[in-house]
């Protein structure tokens, strides 16, 4: 009798895969799509993209945080609360609307506060400019021309929102808007006796507009706290025996304009 080894060998000899099965195996290659091994480049790109995204996020996040740290007031809020009250330097020759200096952009109008008596050192009359004409509502004889506005370059006095403003500052001349017609050469609409200058300032959290009657030297203070909406204020007040329309316009980035119009 054969030993178990021979018997096992004979047994396994008889175990043969069928021809049909072998053909089916060989057909596997056609039906099975080999999956390419993930190359290292694949992961390299993924990591590179993730690193780039993280870097960009970090940069923008850092810039935002740095901006908030240095200037907590958002740019949109600046229009409501001007950082620094721009001094209104009296023009040396206010009666000459055509000779007013070239108007500077609102963002550049922010300058250090000046006293009303401080002469406009930086004001230089300009013969050209889009806003060469004086606004009709502005008394040309008393108040400085609109061009008196901020002549100091922005780099000289950067705006500081938290800095407290001096109590009294010269009123900035009325800045004509673009839609205001140029009245250069026309007769002033308001006489000298009706010349008023407005000064807008922030004192102890209160928003004050000081109106100066330059003809008499008197002044009156209007508390407009909470009434300045979106950097604008419009009110009618009876001051110095006259009915005055006081309009305030704060510009983005600093600077403002007070327009006082005599209604009667």
């Amino acid at each position, binding site marked *: *009798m054969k030993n178990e080894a021979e018997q096992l060998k004979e047994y396994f000899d008889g175990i043969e895969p069928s021809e049909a*099965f072998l053909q089916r195996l060989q057909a596997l290659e056609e039906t*099975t799509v080999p999956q390419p091994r993930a190359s290292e480049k694949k992961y390299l790109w993924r990591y590179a993209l993730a690193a780039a995204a993280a870097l960009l996020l970090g940069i923008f996040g850092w810039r935002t945080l740095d901006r908030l740290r240095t200037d907590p007031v958002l740019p949109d809020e600046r229009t409501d609360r001007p950082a620094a009250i721009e001094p209104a330097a009296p023009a040396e020759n206010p009666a000459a609307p055509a000779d007013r200096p070239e108007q500077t952009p609102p963002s550049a109008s922010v300058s250090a506060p000046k006293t009303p008596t401080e002469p406009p050192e930086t004001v230089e009359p300009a013969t050209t400019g889009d806003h060469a004409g004086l606004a009709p509502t502005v008394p040309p004889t008393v108040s400085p021309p609109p061009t008196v506005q901020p002549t100091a370059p922005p780099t000289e006095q950067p705006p500081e929102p938290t800095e407290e403003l001096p109590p009294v500052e010269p009123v900035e001349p009325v800045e004509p808007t673009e839609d205001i017609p140029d009245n250069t050469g026309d007769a002033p609409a308001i006489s000298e006796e009706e010349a008023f200058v407005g000064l807008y300032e922030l004192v102890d959290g209160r928003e004050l507009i000081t109106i100066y009657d330059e003809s008499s030297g008197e002044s009156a203070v209007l508390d407009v706290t909470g009434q300045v909406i979106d950097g604008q204020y419009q009110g009618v007040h009876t001051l110095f025996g006259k009915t005055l329309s006081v309009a305030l316009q704060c510009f983005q980035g600093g600077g403002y304009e007070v327009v006082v119009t005599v209604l009667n």
Partner: protein
Amino acid sequence: MEHDFQQVTERHGPTLYRLAYSYCGNRSDAEDCVQEVFAKYLTCGKVFEDDEHRLRWLMKVTANQCRDLLKSGWKQKRQTLETLPDIAAPQADPDTRLAVRQAIEALPPKDRGIVYLYYYESYPVRRIAASLGLSETAVRSRLDRARKRLRQMLGGESG
């Protein structure tokens, strides 16, 4: 694939089939296992050092595939239907073949693969251990246990 798949199936298909058959004990399961193994071979994208490395990988995957099949609940609850005489070796003596088959089926499935590789493929213990993912001690122990049981059932002499 750096090696022709046709050559791989022709060269290693019968070996893997017998190994799977020794585990599963029937043709259909063996064919399913081998087919699954070659499907994995096609999709794995593994780079083999040489043909021996490839065969070792195929045998290990075949053994694992058969173990998974035997462990599955469906397989355990299924009652084997292959009680008919096996047609694998029609030329052999039916009585002898039935006795050998019964003796092999009496072995644990893990031991059947070792018996096949040792007695038919004449693999050394080390190679069996490497192919099936077992330690040499485990292979020797199982081989000795299977040999004793086969000798007892087949009435053979020394092995």
